[in-house]
């Protein structure tokens, strides 16, 4: 072996298999069940919206890399994941330009202005979503009545469960829990398939790609706050439920409605904008769950989960200060 030069570098000399590319790829794979559910019920309009959002995000990143003369980061799929996520939380009946603007805002406003991957303080997908929800409320509410694939019916405009609930508490009795969790309801393309999102999210938790504390905290927060809300809200009280199961049913409806599940498993645990510490992650999730219910019951916006994530993103630096005790650290009494 003489004459051959040996490589000298710092330890460790073996590395794990997970790279950024594989991590983002697996996150996209975990979104596939939700995407399939969305496409099954919303068909061509849904597919076009998602594709336009992904294409717009990728094109924006490519142009920005040209303008800034930096190497493009398209290779690690991060931008594609972001584009997919913004596409999935848009309504299927959105006008053609909405996903284009969404992809652009995600990459340009959400990421690049803050310094790209690793540096943005808030989830870029939700930054773009909030900007659009405030700017074009009609376009962002262009929801469609779900039509199963192959039935040949046309899609009708519809209102989501949460919008109807906002106007009239009686909507609680018009929606069936099973349909809501299956995704057979009006809503954003990828946010309606609750079972599908749950499956994808559990996959991410098992693969340890997202910290388990965040979704757990979100579920506990939403269920706990949901129970508090249904028992204290006068409008619910007027409906005259008597059993605990009936109240709990309302909480389950809320978990399956709107963007809660996609927020709990995909948007809140987004690596860059969520805390890294275990307890910080749990409190972060708890905050998302609480905010979701608080906004839905007593706030003016219809959807609380996304605003909850944005708000807790702002608290991330604070939550990151909750640290476990360092093993072996000597506490000096001096």
């Amino acid at each position, binding site marked *: 072996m003489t004459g051959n030069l040996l490589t000298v570098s710092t*330890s*460790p*000399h073996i590395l794990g298999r997970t790279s950024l590319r594989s991590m983002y790829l697996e996150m996209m794979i975990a979104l596939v069940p939700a995407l399939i559910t969305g496409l099954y019920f919303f068909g061509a309009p849904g597919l076009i919206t998602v594709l336009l959002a992904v294409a717009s995000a990728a094109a924006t990143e490519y142009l920005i890399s040209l303008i800034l003369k930096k190497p493009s980061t398209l290779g690690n799929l991060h931008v594609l994941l972001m584009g997919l996520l913004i596409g999935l939380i848009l309504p299927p009946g959105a006008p053609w330009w909405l996903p284009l603007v969404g992809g652009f805002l995600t990459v340009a406003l959400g990421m690049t202005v803050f310094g790209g991957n690793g540096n943005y303080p808030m989830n870029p997908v939700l930054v773009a979503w909030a900007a659009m929800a405030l700017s074009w409320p009609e376009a962002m509410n262009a929801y469609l009545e779900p039509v199963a694939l192959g039935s040949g019916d046309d899609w009708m405009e519809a209102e989501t469960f949460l919008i109807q609930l906002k106007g009239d508490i009686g909507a609680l009795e018009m929606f069936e829990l099973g349909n809501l969790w299956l995704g057979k309801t009006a809503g954003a393309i990828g946010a309606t398939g609750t079972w599908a999102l749950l499956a994808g999210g559990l996959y991410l938790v098992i693969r340890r790609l997202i910290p388990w504390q965040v979704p757990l905290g979100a579920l506990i927060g939403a269920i706990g706050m949901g129970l508090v809300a249904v028992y204290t809200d006068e409008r619910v009280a007027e409906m005259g439920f008597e059993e605990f199961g009936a109240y709990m049913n309302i909480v389950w409806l809320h978990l399956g409605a709107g963007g809660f599940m996609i927020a709990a498993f995909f948007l809140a645990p987004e690596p860059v904008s969520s805390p890294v510490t275990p307890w910080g992650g749990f409190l972060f999730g708890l905050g998302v769950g609480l905010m979701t219910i608080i906004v839905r019951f007593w706030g003016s916006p219809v959807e609380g989960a996304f605003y909850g994530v944005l708000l807790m993103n702002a608290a991330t630096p604070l939550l990151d200060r909750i640290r476990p005790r360092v093993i072996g650290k000597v506490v000096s009494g001096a």
Partner: protein
Amino acid sequence: MKLLNCLKGIRLPRPPAAAPPSPLPAPEKVYLPLRQHQGAEAAPQVEPGDQVKLGQVVGASDEFEAAAVQATVSGTVEAIVPMPDPAGDKVPTVVIANDGADAWHEDLASPEGLLAGLEQVTATRPSRLLRRVREAGLVRAQVNGRPLHVDLSPPMAPQTYLYMTGIPVVRPIDTLIIKAVDPDPPVCPNQSLMGEAGDELAVGVAALARISGAQRVILALPSGVAAPELSALAAQHEWETASVSQTSYPFANDHLMVLSLTGREVPTPYGEPRDVGVTVQPLSTALDVGQVLATGRPVIERVFSVAGVVKNPGVFRVRLGTPIGEVLEAAGGGPSQAGKVVVGGPMMGLALYDLNTPVTRETGGVFVQSAPQVRHFEDHPCIHCGRCVAVCPVNLIPSELGKLCEFRLYEDAAEQNLMNCIECGCCAYVCPARRPMVHFLRHGKTEVLAGRME
């Protein structure tokens, strides 16, 4: 503690069952560095041209933190040249050409004072046992090990870092942990010795316990490896046994093992197991002590494990001072495209640049990689995913420390407990952005120490 172990750290593949070491013939030349441990250098006691015999002292020093060096072949001293040690620093090294006679030095022949039996050991004063260990130049067989007599003595001065902490500044040692596990698989020199449980081991352990004053002996066995002889010996001598997982890294690390086996937390960054009354010794060191006491001769061999991309990976019994390159050839030769030769193990080892680096008392084995296997770190910003936080065995926030060190805010990093890092490498292993975490943290520690020296 078990629960903590499965939540923290990383899972590594189970190392292959270690076979008993196979002896290698003595090399033509041995290279004996005059410092084979952490501490001071010994002064050469021979000159080029001298004839030396087996076990003759070639380096000695009055410094406390220096271990004597003995010839491991008989022959002629050729030169005293600087040679790299595993860390890459040059150390004056005695080169001896082997004459093949393997004749032991005459002074070592005297039979009186041999301590072959257990009763003799328990009847001998600890100070005398310690002197024997010091004369034999034994070193704790681990990278950055210290001379064994230093390791077993009480601290020279009160440990100032323990002032005002509630930990006794000087605490007698009451527990001896003999570890048959290896911290960095698949380099497993200790595991391969598990079959050699006999009187020598009993003598060695008894002597170590007597010198250190430990009443309690814990034998840390690798989990999932059957060692009937060792368990029987432990039962016979009333040693406690504990099993330590081989696959959950880095829980065979000394400090973490002390925590999980005794519940005592070794104070970091400057603390040692003896600060909490524990001493941890590898199985091979215990065997060496037994051999030294029983034969009166210094140890001339080292159990050396060769793992990774070689034709016949295994454990070999090699003469101290054999160039590592020769051991690799004995193991069937390295890969055609040489990549890395790492002394220690894949997670914490030191990459060699010179294959003439000799086998020393502190090196336990090498891990060989071919060129395509060499992994590269990348220059990507931290994405704050928290995977490093999830695995860090000492509950640091490596992502933040890495960023602080990257941007040269070393003192800020020190405030966030940078100095408590044990450099196990778990954070770098799991980092999806492939950041050179250990490099950042190690560099930061060096800078902090340099800054505090000023």
